[in-house]
């Protein structure tokens, strides 16, 4: 389906909206418990909890919480189990290996009152550790741009967790400048021109 067709379909659906479409009925009590119980019966994942926790501490996504106890094994099956468990540990380790830091940008202060900050790119997520003072004349917004300022992409307003997933299709190597601006709440989605911190990936 082309973009135009998709847009046309979107408009048709919007025009067809009824009050009933917006009426939400939460599931009755007990449904979540039934889901949790059913999931719990799934084959347990074996692996070293220590390894998983240590690795995930630096993961972009928060720690995995479904590591379960190994089942007791008996007799000659023991070594087979150990081999299988070792393989699983390796597999989990590989799959959970955090993205290495791909690039770092030290953000320099462009407006008085700000502190220098650091932005790190890991995979498709930008992390910014910045101590931004509260402001009353707007909101902080994070941007990626190229050095010629011909292309600019918003990563959204500054978030408390400092994590900014890059929108699909955004190539950080083509947009190596990290910029934090103050945006007046005037409904204009473009950059205000008031940058407070900026740095380039290296």
């Amino acid at each position, binding site marked *: 389906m082309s973009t135009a067709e998709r847009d046309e379909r979107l408009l048709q659906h919007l025009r067809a909206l009824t009050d009933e479409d917006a009426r939400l009925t939460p599931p009755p009590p007990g449904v979540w418990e039934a889901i949790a119980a059913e999931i719990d019966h799934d084959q347990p994942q074996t692996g070293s909890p220590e390894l998983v926790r240590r690795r995930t501490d630096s993961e972009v996504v928060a720690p995995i919480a479904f590591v379960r106890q190994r089942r007791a094994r008996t007799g000659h099956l023991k070594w087979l189990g150990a081999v299988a468990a070792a393989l699983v540990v390796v597999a989990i380790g590989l799959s959970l290996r955090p993205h290495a830091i791909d690039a770092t940008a030290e953000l320099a202060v462009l407006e008085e009152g700000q502190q220098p900050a650091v932005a790190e790119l890991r995979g498709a997520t930008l992390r910014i550790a910045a101590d931004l003072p509260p402001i009353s004349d707007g909101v902080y917004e994070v941007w990626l741009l190229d050095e010629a300022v011909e*292309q600019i992409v918003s990563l959204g307003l500054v978030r408390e967790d400092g994590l900014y997933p890059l929108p699909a299709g955004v190539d950080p190597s083509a947009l190596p400048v990290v910029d934090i601006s103050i945006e007046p709440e005037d409904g204009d989605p473009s950059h205000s021109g008031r940058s407070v911190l900026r740095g380039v990936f290296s």
Partner: protein
Amino acid sequence: MNSGTVRGVSLLDEPPPPTSRHARGSRAPATLSGPTPIAVGPVSLTTQSDEIVHQAFAAGDDRALKEAYDRWGALVHSLALRSLGNPADAADATQAVFVSAWRSRGRYDPSRPLAAWLTRIAQRRVVDMHRSRARHPEPVEQLPETVADEQAIEQAATRMLLADALAELPRERREVIHLAIVEQHTHAEVAARTGLPVGTVKSHIRRGLKVLRDRLAVDA
């Protein structure tokens, strides 16, 4: 993503950008041994953006399943209830949708909205339940009015997904979308009715439609 031009003068005019690091050329990532520790830690997902929940879900963090249930359980359940008409069947369908979504999370692409993916699974589930009903008709004289046709289910699901996304828009933007798109007023009329400048009306429409379009994006 908002692409576009930058308002006013070049961003790089003043003060000068810190290009010195860049001039040194690219360095190995390993050289960053942490000037600033970044505290991420085991944070609660309830305050996180949808994107973080999408990633955690795909990564197999089971708290993301609960979070998805809290955020979109009502949407899934309402779709099932509307289509099946029977509260017990709707509860069963909701349970099945989340269990199935969790077990097939390896096929979920976290760059796409989880709400749309869950809704897609719910549609299939509901269609299956209608088929099995057709094979084993219930001895009930008066089933409640339901949406049974496959295409009708899909359209209802899309509209419910849109209504859900609309409800999450900031009030002003939602109002503008409603006036301009649903009621089909001109930009000038919307501006007059809301007291907003036409430019703001247009930007609300552009940004609002982008959110809604993205919310429906299940397929590439």
